[in-house]
């Protein structure tokens, strides 16, 4: 076989493999949406799950996924941006910074079930909260913390490049420069990272099994207390999310239409993740256009 023939054959193989992967994706996404095609049904999206009979909905779980996302962002964003500021503007090259970076690598590589177990130990048992929104949100915050730190650090470094000297030259302190100039410039980029992370948070399950728990008490939207068990906004109630619910349906299957619900719930879940991804991309493009346009 000549080398030219080999070249053609291998090129062909690479084409086949790549097209196969794309087709596989299309099939997977197609299947998810086909099997879940009846999900866009108000009684499914806003109805409560039923016990032992068919026709249940996913309203409390859907709400829990959102609520969990928001509460965890409240925790992760201040910490992640703070750590990003530290690494970009205050940390000096040296042992301490190396150790911190090693810690971030370590945190980033923890399997999510291990994080969930740590959460069980500390946020559920030690604090006495039991399975709760807060415990779940903290476990999720832990998982997202390394990536948000990295996103923030990158955004801050690139935002600070042109303007830091100018600001310091005017007599501003480092923190003033960061708070009043650099963070506002970096915010869109950080936000893009946050939206992207939200997609992952929405789909997270292993870390929530033993922190937010596997039960979703019915939610009474008339009460707004942060602590009462039936209040949807209570931080201290168990909060099974949509992804955990799918898993539970599969492992316990207590209703006759468990398969069907799982199909529809999966479609909803993937749709939400897609929405987050697309929004993040659009925001990213807007930022890119704005900066390359102006300069």
């Amino acid at each position: 076989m000549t080398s030219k023939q080999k070249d053609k054959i291998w090129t062909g193989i690479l084409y086949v493999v790549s097209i196969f992967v794309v087709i596989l994706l299309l099939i997977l996404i197609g299947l998810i949406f086909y099997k879940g095609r009846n999900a866009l049904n108000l009684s499914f999206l806003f109805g409560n799950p039923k016990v032992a009979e068919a026709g249940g909905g996913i309203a409390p779980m859907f709400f829990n996924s959102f609520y969990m996302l928001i509460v965890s962002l409240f925790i992760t964003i201040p910490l992640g941006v703070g750590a990003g500021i530290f690494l970009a503007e205050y940390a000096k090259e040296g042992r301490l910074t190396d150790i911190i970076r090693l810690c971030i690598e370590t945190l980033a590589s923890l399997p999510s079930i291990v994080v969930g177990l740590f959460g069980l130990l500390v946020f559920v048992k030690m604090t006495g909260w039991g399975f709760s929104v807060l415990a779940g949100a903290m476990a999720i915050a832990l998982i997202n913390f390394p990536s948000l730190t990295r996103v923030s650090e990158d955004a801050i470094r690139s935002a600070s490049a042109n303007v830091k000297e100018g600001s310091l030259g005017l007599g501003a302190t480092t923190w003033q420069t960061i708070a009043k100039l650099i963070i506002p410039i970096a915010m869109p980029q950080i936000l893009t990272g946050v939206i992207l992370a939200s997609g992952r948070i929405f789909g997270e399950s292993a870390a929530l099994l033993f922190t937010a728990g596997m039960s979703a008490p019915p939610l009474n939207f008339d009460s707004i207390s942060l602590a009462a068990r039936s209040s949807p906004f209570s931080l201290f109630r168990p909060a099974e999310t949509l992804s955990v619910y799918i898993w539970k349906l599969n492992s316990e299957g207590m209703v006759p239409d468990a398969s069907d619900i799982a199909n529809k719930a999966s479609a909803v879940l993937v749709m939400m993740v897609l929405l987050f991804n697309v929004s993040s991309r659009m925001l990213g493009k807007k930022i890119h256009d704005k900066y390359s346009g102006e300069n």
Partner: protein
Amino acid sequence: MENKKFITKLKNEYLGRTYAFACGLFIIILTLSIIFFIFTKGIATFTKDGVSLAEFLFSTVWKPEGSPKSFGALIFIAGSTLVSVGAVILSAPISVALAIFMHYISPKFGSKVLQPALELFVGIPSVVYGWLGFSILLPMLKAGFGGIGFSLLAGIIVLSVMILPTIASISADAVKVVPANYMEASYGLGATRWQTISKVIVPAAKGGILTGVVLGLARAFGEAMAVQMVIGNSIKLADGLYSSTSTLTSILAMDMGNTATGSTWNDALWSMALLLLIISFIFILIIRVIGKRGE
């Protein structure tokens, strides 16, 4: 006058700087506490309950409620290893092929189709992969090979799809940074494109590709939900690709909620969590070593 100045400084620099430093320090504290808590919980099996480390690591007899009780975790260790290595064997060649295709065969198709496709793959939550595996792959396997469908093979297939984007994107980055003059030299000598790719580019990108593979391996090892849904969860060593078995992550997902805190059974599960933690450290170390050798 001195006081006013100090308050201004406080507002303009010290408070903010302290906050940033605190976030940085928090990273270290967080990492250390995760290690500490899981470690202390995990070694209780050996220190408090008297199970021998050798039995835990090398015995395949897992009878936490039998008489006599036995806590050999080799089944799960083997299960995790086999399913992860299998997934990498299946996925790595395809991923590297994608990486090469994206950069050298058809960059336009690569950036417009493959890259978004890979991002979509990443976005699909693990429960959905598990559910698709359960509802579509298992029946296919049952039809093709008979039996129950739940198997090591099912786990391998599902995991390989999940880790494909990881290995592909890191390999793509590695393949991208091969210096142009290597390629010019190769073409200048009359080599075909495939010869240049296989004999020059891939070897030059070896370090990065290897890093991608190890990261994929680590991800597969830590995956809980998707694996648990298709692997069968039988407490036995896999005696073939088509045999059902369990992994460290799957047994944790299933049993942690059913065991009493403080019981040896529960402690043994924590030891498995500790084992997962240690294994993720080992992966980090391996990646760092690869990185250093690359330089």
